[in-house]
């Protein structure tokens, strides 16, 4: 088997006395869409934050493209090709849609203080490249027309699309999508699903956390189920749907220990 894009090994995360993640291990093969599901409080967002570099794991290891990235922080991970979108859309207020996406090109550009201060030709060329790449990204998600709008004036659904455009502009090899369907209605969820599929076609591996089962079941190649910080099932949509443990976790147990 080829080296998996992302390898999570015995990952644990404790906050004080509370164990949010418990010895979680899994692979993400290159080029697939993998979803992480589980009831509220299962540790999905914590897992995401640890992978993305926002949090440090207590124990365990993370390998990205074969390299140990366990202790790396979020901006470092972004530079390595891991992009993420946020559950509550976090577009940059006070900046236009285009400028938001142009930030995504930050790690692919290098103009420094002196080049910028003097506006050297190299810097100007780079600016043009940044803008072109950003516009391409906007077109990809269908937001090309709104390039000059202020990000905070966009309706919710478009802010979500903007976040995707911004993440895609970083030319990631792995996209972490945190509840991409959160706050969207049925039609909008289908649009996001189509977008994720389109992203997948570009060869980008997608790892997503999601509650919306229709989205998960329709587009995921593999599903991982978490409960109380531990992995309780992993497999294709079919396999997971039939897994007894998963069913009981979602429908409740007789003794109601949840």
């Amino acid at each position, binding site marked *: 088997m080829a080296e998996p894009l992302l390898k999570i090994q015995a990952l644990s995360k404790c906050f004080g006395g509370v164990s949010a993640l418990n010895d979680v291990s899994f692979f993400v093969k290159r080029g697939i869409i993998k979803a992480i599901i589980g009831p509220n409080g299962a540790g999905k967002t914590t897992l995401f934050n640890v992978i*993305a570099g*926002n949090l440090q794991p207590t124990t365990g290891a993370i390998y990205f493209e074969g390299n140990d990235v366990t202790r790396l*922080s*979020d*901006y470092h991970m*972004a*530079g390595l090709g891991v*992009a*993420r979108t*946020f559950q509550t859309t*976090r*577009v*940059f*207020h*006070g*900046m236009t849609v285009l*400028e938001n996406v*142009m*930030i*995504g*090109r*930050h*790690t692919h*550009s290098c*103009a420094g*203080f002196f080049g*910028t*201060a*003097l*506006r050297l030709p190299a*810097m100007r060329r*780079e*600016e043009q490249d*940044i803008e072109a790449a950003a516009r391409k990204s906007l077109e990809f998600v269908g937001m090309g027309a709104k390039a*000059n*709008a*202020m990000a905070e*004036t966009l309706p919710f659904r478009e802010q979500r699309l903007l976040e995707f455009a*911004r993440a895609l502009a*970083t030319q990631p090899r792995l996209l972490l999508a945190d509840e991409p369907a959160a706050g969207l209605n049925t039609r909008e969820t289908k649009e996001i699903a189509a977008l994720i599929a389109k992203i997948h076609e570009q060869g980008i591996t997608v790892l997503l956390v999601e509650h919306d089962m229709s989205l998960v079941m329709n587009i995921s190649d593999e599903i991982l189920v978490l409960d109380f910080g531990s992995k309780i099932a992993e497999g294709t949509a079919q396999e997971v749907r039939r897994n007894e443990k998963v069913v009981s976790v979602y429908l409740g147990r007789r003794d109601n220990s949840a």
Partner: protein
Amino acid sequence: MMRKIYIPYIIFALIILLIPVFIHSYYYLGVLIQAGYFSLICMGLSLVMGYAGQISLGHAAFFGLGGYASAILTGGHGWCPWLAMIVAMIISGVLAWLIGKPSLKLKGHYLAMATLGFGEIVYIFFNAEIRLTGGPSGYTMGVIPYLTIGNLTIDNEFKHYLLTWAIVLLILLVNLHIIHSRLGRALRAIHADEEAARAMGVHTARFKVWIFVLSAVYASLAGSLYAHNILFVAPGPFAAMHSILFVTMVIVGGMGSIWGAVAGALLLTILPETLRGFQDYNILIYGGILLFIMLFMSGGLFGGGRLFLAWLSHLRGRKKEVADG
């Protein structure tokens, strides 16, 4: 796009450089020179506050460091003033880096207090190290020389005005370039949402420190120019009150705009001079202005600027819709 930026700049530069043609009074030129120093400081502060979203209540310290370093190196040790100025900027920059690295991890009130504390310590230093600085009565251990460019000695208000504002205009251009670049976008992103900026690969901690260092260098430059103009430095102009004054200027002009910084500096330097007897009540009036702006107009004079431009482009969009039928 840059044309939109260069045109106002050129107009402003022309106006500034032509003023001495019409105003000959050394007094008024002196006021404008002082406004120039403050513009330099406030532009730096504006980058820190308005763009990176940090607070600094201690910037007068860097202004003072520039002034004292220039005074001591040129007056006490005969250094070439331009070299001393550069060394002063380096000293201020290094100190800003040393203070900035731990401070800029702090947020909000903690950062405000840390910078305030730092500014106070430097002020105490100016007063206490009498053998080095001359203490509360000022530096008298040597004669601070005028600046010279080749054969030209900058020794009257007219020449000081041109030199000061030439430098301010240069730095303004540099800042405009920075703002409209990947660096400027990164700064604004940090201000808007630091965690999201990091998710985009922006090394936020490093940016915050470097912009703080840059602002300290600007303030130091202003201090050196000041020393070679007045030919005297004393701790007075570098107290905490002045740090707060600079912040007030930035806020009045509108934090998110480099033009606002210059406008705020000009306004709050010129205005007091037009009100005689202002001196005694200046603390009160600055406080009142600050309070008023914070309560009612936290966008400042130019704060609405970007919103205004956004509204304009929205209008243009609407017109297009109507035209398309």
